């Protein structure tokens, strides 16, 4: 059984302007990145997965639960979504309370909820800011708070919508490690990301979306070798792939390391 199953999905906000058209996907444990231009329908799709929106036609199953029959709150232990804009997610006036809110709603007792919250806050390196008001924090810190909030609920499926926006070098390393650890723990990790280098380094499976449709879906090295499809979706390949294209090497490189190793082995 697939962790996520999307069958013949259609969606629009306003009649006559379709946002998602006939999406069919099965997602299991491979870490997956959804890429595509602004307006391709990526964020709408993950909001549907999270049951914040309901399909106009078709069905979405999260661990065999139909999102039409289950609210976002009731699916909280199955699937967690870190929003692109942290202000859409944060509503408490204290970091600890904010992060504790999820586990409390999953019916953990107060002590356990606090333990989970503190642990997650430590994972995002914010233990010094545990008593701060999230609105006094910078945008990048608020984003880390939202990541901690989702980690504290320990969902089986975790979606990061643009986790690296506005983050500096150190924080990007931290987020990479969090994602790697979640994958290692057997979670299904999904991301929406515009940074192709980040995607190529961390994610096994790539779904290319364009104007509400899935244009390509497969292993990263396969998808990133399809130049025409990337062009059609107005996407650029990862930096190292551009480099190897320029050099005329007919091999797909996903990371700096791949590229450097190739030359070292000559």
């Amino acid at each position, binding site marked *: 059984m697939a962790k996520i199953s999307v069958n013949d999905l259609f969606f629009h906000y306003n009649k006559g302007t379709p946002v998602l058209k006939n999406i069919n996907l099965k997602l299991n444990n491979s870490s997956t990145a959804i890429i595509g*231009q602004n307006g391709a329908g990526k964020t709408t799709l993950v909001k549907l997965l999270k049951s914040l929106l309901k399909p106009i036609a078709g069905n979405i199953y999260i661990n065999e639960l139909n999102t039409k029959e289950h609210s976002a709150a009731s699916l909280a232990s199955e699937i967690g979504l870190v929003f692109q804009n942290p202000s859409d997610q944060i509503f408490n006036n204290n970091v600890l309370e904010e992060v504790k809110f999820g586990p409390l709603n999953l019916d953990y007792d107060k002590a356990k909820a606090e333990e989970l919250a503190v642990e997650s806050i430590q994972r995002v390196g914010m233990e010094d800011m545990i008593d701060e008001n999230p609105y006094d924090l910078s945008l990048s810190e608020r984003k880390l708070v939202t990541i901690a909030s989702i980690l504290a609920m320990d969902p089986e499926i975790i979606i990061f919508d643009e986790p690296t926006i506005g983050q500096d*070098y*150190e924080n990007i390393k931290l987020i990479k490690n969090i994602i790697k650890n979640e994958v290692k723990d057997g979670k299904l990790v999904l991301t929406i990301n515009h940074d192709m*280098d980040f995607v190529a380094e961390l994610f096994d499976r790539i779904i290319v979306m364009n104007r509400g449709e899935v244009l390509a879906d497969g292993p990263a090295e396969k998808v990133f070798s399809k130049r025409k499809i990337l062009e059609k979706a107005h996407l650029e390949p990862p930096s190292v792939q551009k*480099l190897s294209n320029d*050099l005329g090497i007919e091999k797909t490189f996903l990371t700096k390391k791949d590229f450097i190793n190739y030359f070292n082995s000559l």
Partner: protein
Amino acid sequence: MSKVIIKNLSYQYPLGDENALEDISLKINKGDFLGIVGPNKAGKSTLCKSLVGLVPHFYNGDFSGEILIDDLNTKNHSISQISLKVGLVFQNPFNQISGAKLTVYDEVAFGLENIGLPREKMIERIDYYLKLMDIYDQRASNPFEISGGQMQRLAIASIMAREPDVFVLDEPTSQLDPQGSKEVFNAIHKLSQKDLTVIIVSQKMERLAKYTDNILLLNQGRVIDYDKKEKIFARDDLEELGVRPPIYTEIARKMNLKNDKSYYPINRKKLTDLVVKKYGQNFSK
């Protein structure tokens, strides 16, 4: 002649426990395209805010030293006076949009009404900058009902339309996809060819490497280095200072590929040339 002169600038926010900026001194020439890099808390945004006078006039706090824009000392002038010369685009477009206007078009007009431009001139400018930022088709939309990327472009167009001499942008492309980000950098670059002085904060090192002239490297409120971009990106301690070098520079460093001036290349073209030079055409294809 220098456009911007910063002398011994130190600043602490009212509730801060340490200086956000610490003894900053530098000069920026007219027409320069300057990139500011540094980790969180380096003082990048605070420096941007001080260039337009928000620091200290809006935020108060302890301010010492001075900033001169031409002969205008920001300490002695109001934000509205400074904003005739300096435009600032914030990181989060939500903070920029006035909320007072119902259409994208009127939002850009709003900023121009205050400078008392004749009507025809205003229309000309609004059209020009909406087109330049590729949001002309959305001109009748509500500023809060367009996408994050479009909102960011609107914020940039609104400030650009005022045609400041110095244009300060704090992570202006964070919400944009690569295509959108490229278009914005191209547009800014185009304007910088016409004497506009551009100061931009960004984590997008590859774009900074492509478009800027100089880089200012900040860490914990201090100037660590301020030089030609090739020199800054060639520093061996960038990562320790919390800054990722452009990916092509990183690769070059690991492959020990330097150019004649013994700098690592900072863009793809230059790296490609060095790879070909070292390995010939012999690598298997």
